[in-house]
């Protein structure tokens, strides 16, 4: 190749070089692509990020509770007393001073509420958040938030993706990727609407996408290919049948025609991995149900209850009539047996009858606030906090590492996600009023891993609206109402110590203990 006197390529040489480069790249690209696919582990790991600690650290666990309908932070830990709100107290959602209890040595507040009715439902509501706050304040962090949607499903999804803060991944997928790769079902999701959706990052391994569970009591029956089916042949015959089927799946015209499709590749992979589910006898270990013929004739079908079944049923006695209790029971077993790194649960929008009051779940959950704000919020907060308390109690009783004395709770974070806040206005001094959806709210995180006894941000008592904070320093930013969905998302992962390198997420050090 000759150069011009000025050291540059001649026009003809330049065109030739470009042509050759194009030809070369065309020749080489498919081979390099093939190599990359075949040897992609390291590259994929680099691309998707955040898997280093999976190999080097012990697992951590995330429980997301989808508080569907809009759990208002000013009806709980950041409640405002009427005397603090000045002249506007009567028009905003402020409480009589006596209803908002302070907790010594803590920035949190606790609401005590009594009413003879829950909206038009004739049951008494009598709740008090004080005991919960006193018990868990050192593990509690409340961060104020400004969302970007007042549509339930969209807001729910954004509460777990930080509004696509990290390639659209959900928090649960991030945790499953980081700590759940060696687990049978890293990400199990039992929640409703947007809380139950998967993220939009298609580069993640399929195993971290949520395994959707809609019936927590019966779902474990699907964790074995034949146990509990009467009349099946012996194990060695089953193994032969599976081998014959698998061989023919590869050899058949159908198998060869579609061998390279993602669908069949996933199917083969899932089939191989399912052997692990059977080997761990998860159909038994995750089975909350008791042997209770004729409705639940486990022993007649060669099945049995989990060794932890009686204990879990004692803590969650309503597990059969209350889906949220059933989900919490299964969530504990999933974590205890290290089947999952992330579990998602939450009440749904359906009315559920039962329990001591006759109502386990009001229609629309927190969104029953459209009908009767105060009663709905009090009832539902009590429902959420009671379940959280039971889960923490179980996790605290479960050893994680006898050498270090750690319990499961030491390595678990509970994120009470919610759709959005509620509107603040009310008719003058009304005690029964309705509320709408509002972007302004806050989230509760509970874990030994968060900076406990901490409120990030705050509430302006004159408007009852929250203001923001610096996610790095934790300094309040009075008057700031900028959206901070990525900060909350990052805060959860930062508190858990996730590897966020390459994520581009903001610094959220203020969340970490």
């Amino acid at each position: 190749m000759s150069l011009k006197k000025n050291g540059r390529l001649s026009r003809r040489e330049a065109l030739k070089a470009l042509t050759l480069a194009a030809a070369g790249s065309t020749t080489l690209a498919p081979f390099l692509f093939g190599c990359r696919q075949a040897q992609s582990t390291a590259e994929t790991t680099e691309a998707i990020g955040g898997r280093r600690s999976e190999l080097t650290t012990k697992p951590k666990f995330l429980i997301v509770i989808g508080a569907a309908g809009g759990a208002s932070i000013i009806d709980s830990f950041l409640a405002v007393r009427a005397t603090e709100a000045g002249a506007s107290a009567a028009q905003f959602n402020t409480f009589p001073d006596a209803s908002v209890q302070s907790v010594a040595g803590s920035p949190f507040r606790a609401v005590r509420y009594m009413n003879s009715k829950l909206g038009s439902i004739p049951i008494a509501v009598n709740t008090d958040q004080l005991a919960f706050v006193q018990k868990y304040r050192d593990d509690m962090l409340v961060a104020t938030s400004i969302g970007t949607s007042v549509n339930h499903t969209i807001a729910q999804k954004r509460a777990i993706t930080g509004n696509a803060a990290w390639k659209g991944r959900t928090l649960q997928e991030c945790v499953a990727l980081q700590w759940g790769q060696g687990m049978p079902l890293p990400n199990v999701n039992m929640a409703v609407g947007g809380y139950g959706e998967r993220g939009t990052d298609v580069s993640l391994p399929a195993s971290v996408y949520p395994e959707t569970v809609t019936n927590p009591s019966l779902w474990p029956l699907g964790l074995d290919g034949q146990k509990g089916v009467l009349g099946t042949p012996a194990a060695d015959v089953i193994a032969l049948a599976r081998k014959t089927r698998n061989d023919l799946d590869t050899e058949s015209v159908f198998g060869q025609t579609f061998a390279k499709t993602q669908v069949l590749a996933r199917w083969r992979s899932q089939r191989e991995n399912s052997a692990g589910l059977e080997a761990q006898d998860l159909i038994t270990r995750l089975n909350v149900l008791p042997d209770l013929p004729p409705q639940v004739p486990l022993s007649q079908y060669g099945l049995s209850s989990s060794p932890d079944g009686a204990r879990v049923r004692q803590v969650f006695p309503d597990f059969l009539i209350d889906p949220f209790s059933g989900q919490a029971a299964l969530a504990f077993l999933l974590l205890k047996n290290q089947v999952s790194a992330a579990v998602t649960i939450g009440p749904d929008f359906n009315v559920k009858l039962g329990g001591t009051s006759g109502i386990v779940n009001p229609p629309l959950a927190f969104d029953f606030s459209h009908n009767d704000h105060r009663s709905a919020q009090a009832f539902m907060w009590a429902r959420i906090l009671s379940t959280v308390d039971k889960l923490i109690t179980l996790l605290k009783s479960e050893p994680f590492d006898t050498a270090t004395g750690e319990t499961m709770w030491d390595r678990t974070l509970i994120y009470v996600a919610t759709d959005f806040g509620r509107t603040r206005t009310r008719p003058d001094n009304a005690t029964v009023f309705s509320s709408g959806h509002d972007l302004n709210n806050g989230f509760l995180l509970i874990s030994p891993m968060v900076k406990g006894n901490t409120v990030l941000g705050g509430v302006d008592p004159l408007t009852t609206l929250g203001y923001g904070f610096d996610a790095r320093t934790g300094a309040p930013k009075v008057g700031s109402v900028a959206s901070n969905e990525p900060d909350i998302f990052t805060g959860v992962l930062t508190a858990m110590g996730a590897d966020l390198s390459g994520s581009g997420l903001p610094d959220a050090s203020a969340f970490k203990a």
Partner: protein
Amino acid sequence: MVRPKYLLLLTALGWLGSACTNNEETYLPPLVASSSRGNLRFKGPERLNSDVAAALELPADAVCTELGMYQCTSTVHNVALGGVEPYGTGLYEPSGVTSSTTPLVVERLAWSACTRRVTTDFADLGAAVIFRGIKLNSAKLADPDGEEVRAAITQLVQRGLLREPSENEVARYIKLARDIEATGNAEPARAWMQAVCFAVFSSAEAVFY
């Protein structure tokens, strides 16, 4: 015209690429053309249940139940099989992909349906739906390579996969019979009937379209 040194460069690049031994194309060439679109879909709970019910001539609600009373495809495993649950969890659209537990649930369904079919057929082989006329020698197949066995395999594949079985498939299923006998199973004929039925109805071809 391309100068020799450039040809050398291109050759070297080509060699470099082909030196990668992990390209799938370099081994196990397919015997049939690979689909360029490959737009496979999982059948989903309703279609799977109705297909198995029709193929094995079982009532739709008897294909598979958990604990003898809870319907597999419509209740217990609906979502694992790609169904929806709009009223409880607000799952309005199927996920579109198989989940980690789908293969196991498919197997439960296949075992459940096949054991039921075989139990009925075995009680009167002369009037059996699938395994008609198969002759037994005590608890064994009298002739694993016999016409009746081949006919039963053909029945299963025709009903389950809507096509004729290949010679390879017939040979494989006959070999399965001999392999089961070799395990010392007390009822090898019944076990084979269940196993071959299971192999057909839990195959990828039976659950994707």
